[in-house]
């Protein structure tokens, strides 16, 4: 990658990232004792963990462990019944999703949520924050529309570069609804990168993505990591988790089961039992 979409215009965000990609030891995200129940089902039962800046942290656990719900609680898509989320030193518990996104914490969805009746380009052009043309009068009044178009032309270049980065530029004019499952995942990623975030929560981003593209995508995640982005990655494929995530947080039945380096997680009895479906003694 010679130029990335995010190299420009990110001066302020750049300051908060480390150039080397090594962890600075500061937690960028702290999750404390999160709770969520749906009727009788306790989906998240006091999970807590920290994500250090500049890491690709894995979040694993058997189906129904509460990973996706935890993402929803962190990003404000659902309200937690209890607990606390601290991002970049600020308590963001109970904030609205758009406020959290605008602080630089964004996420993708496990089931890709493309905007089907909009083209791929429209999808990614939606993402950049605080566009001039989002104000109605600027978009409409003759004296101001020029500035709107000017900014859009800059963002258009950024959008194209991002699509190239995620290898979906050949689909630029296509309706998002016509994309394959894997392509939708890539589109979602492209979209969140266009928001110029600091930290990205990826919910099974590789599901449906073909193996060659998967490799590329993981490479790209590491490239971005080296630019200072932080990732929290939910992934089912253990090979991917063992090779690409460090540390790894394991969830089971809405709780944090353990956290550690991939090696430790691999050798942990409790993790094995959880995945085999056995009841874990607490």
């Amino acid at each position: 990658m010679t130029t990335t979409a995010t190299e420009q215009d990110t001066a302020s965000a750049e300051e908060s990232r480390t150039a080397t990609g090594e962890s600075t030891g500061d937690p960028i995200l702290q999750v404390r004792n999160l709770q969520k129940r749906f009727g009788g089902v306790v989906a998240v039962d006091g999970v807590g963990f920290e994500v250090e800046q500049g890491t690709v942290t894995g979040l694993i656990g058997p189906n129904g462990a509460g990973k996706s719900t935890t993402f929803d609680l962190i990003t404000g898509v659902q309200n937690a019944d209890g607990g606390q989320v601290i991002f970049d030193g600020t308590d963001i518990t109970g904030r609205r999703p758009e406020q959290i996104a605008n602080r630089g914490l964004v996420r993708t969805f496990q089931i890709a949520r493309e905007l089907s009746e909009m083209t791929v380009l429209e999808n990614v052009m939606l993402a950049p924050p605080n566009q001039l043309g989002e104000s109605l009068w600027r978009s409409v009044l003759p004296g101001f529309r020029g500035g709107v178009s000017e900014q859009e032309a800059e963002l258009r270049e950024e959008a194209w570069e991002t699509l190239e980065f995620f290898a979906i530029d050949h689909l630029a004019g296509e309706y998002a609804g016509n994309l394959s499952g894997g392509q939708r995942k890539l589109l979602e990623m492209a979209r969140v990168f266009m928001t110029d975030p600091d930290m990205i929560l990826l919910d099974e981003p590789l599901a449906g993505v073909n193996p060659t593209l998967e490799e590329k995508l993981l490479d790209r995640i590491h490239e971005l990591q080296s630019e200072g982005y932080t990732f929290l990655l939910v992934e089912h494929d253990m090979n991917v988790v063992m090779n690409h995530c460090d540390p790894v947080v394991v969830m089971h039945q809405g709780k944090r089961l353990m956290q550690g380096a991939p090696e430790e997680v691999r050798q942990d009895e409790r993790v094995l039992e959880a995945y085999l479906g056995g009841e874990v003694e607490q």
Partner: protein
Amino acid sequence: MSDGDAQADDTTPGGDTEQSVRDRIWAVASASDIRLIAVTLLAIYAIFLFLGIVGGLDANGLYSSLERVTFFAAVYALVVLALNLQWGYAGLFNIGIAGFMAIGLYSMHILTVQIGLAYPIGALGAVLITSLFGALVALPALRLRADYLAIVTLAFAEIVRSILGSQRFAEFTFAGFDIGFGGATGPDGTLPDPVKFFLYKHPYSLRPEPNAFGEFYFGLFDLFIIDDSTAEGILYALFLSLFVGLYYFLLVRTGNSPFGRVLKAIREDETVAKALGKDTRKFKITAFALGSALMGLAAILWYTKRGGVTPTNFEPEVTFFVFVALIIGGAGSNTGSVIGGIVFGALLFRGPVFIERIINQRLEAEADPTTIFDAFGGIDPFIVYTTDNLSALRVVLLGVVLVILIQRRPEGLLGKRKEIASSIDLEDRTGGEN
């Protein structure tokens, strides 16, 4: 794909050859949206002229029927464009259109006729009042699920209609002004007709005398054996068409922009828009208020000329008609909205009335009056019969049209269209700004 919104997109897979030929004809015809609108209008004029000539109308009758067709095509286009912003773009299901139209028209009457403000100031005030009501109605519903907006708007429209028709508010004092809604028959005093000011020295004197422009204008139409009142109607139709142009310009700009992009995203999946950092409430309220304001203004332009200020003009069927018109044209497309408004207003709304007129005229002209009276017991009951059943017939006709449309062209007459929400051509990477 380079002309952005100016191109219809043929995504229909070319199954049989007949289909693809038809699609190709469509693609050519729709190369320019403005041309597409013009062609539709001309085709409709041709139909009416043909029927009028067959029906034995004289020149004045023909022009007058075209004037009426244009009137209804234009007023429907205005309201449909406004609804397209709310429903077509943002997915905001407003089934209280009639209520917002009523607020606009009644505010106009109060501000101009009752309080005495000048026409343009009154219109501006009425538009602002309607947009405020739009924002107010949308506000509580935005916190709730999407379908609540439908319930709230429906209830709103019915409350508005019953308050306007209620005897209790027929006359009252507000902020020192004696105003009123006039009860079931509406308030006294006709709204000023802006076109008359262009044509007459003192438009509301007993026998208005044309001014210099009026002399010229009426003289011009005299050459074509068109009487003054038809000529006046034609000028009003042109005035309305100008507003259709303004609405279209405003809404194309609104849609083809980052603002329009957020609206589309809200329609597609609001959670995504929020997760990407958009404060969707702000966008929804703005779009809803603007759409409502445009509905209010459309009502002012409509009932200034035809129908008058009464609550009966704002029954729920108005809302239903506007939705049908938008579905005909294709929700989400501004060009489609104009076409839907024209097709609905001219063919489905005006068409039945026109045909009925022609049939009556033929009966009157051809049959010996005495035998007709003998046979049917007079012509008047016959006219009364058809007129009474007109709205029922119209609804049946609409039902049939809707069923055919949803089966054959669910995306509207124009099919699926690519109207990209951006101020520039996104696919033309190297291209400059538009």
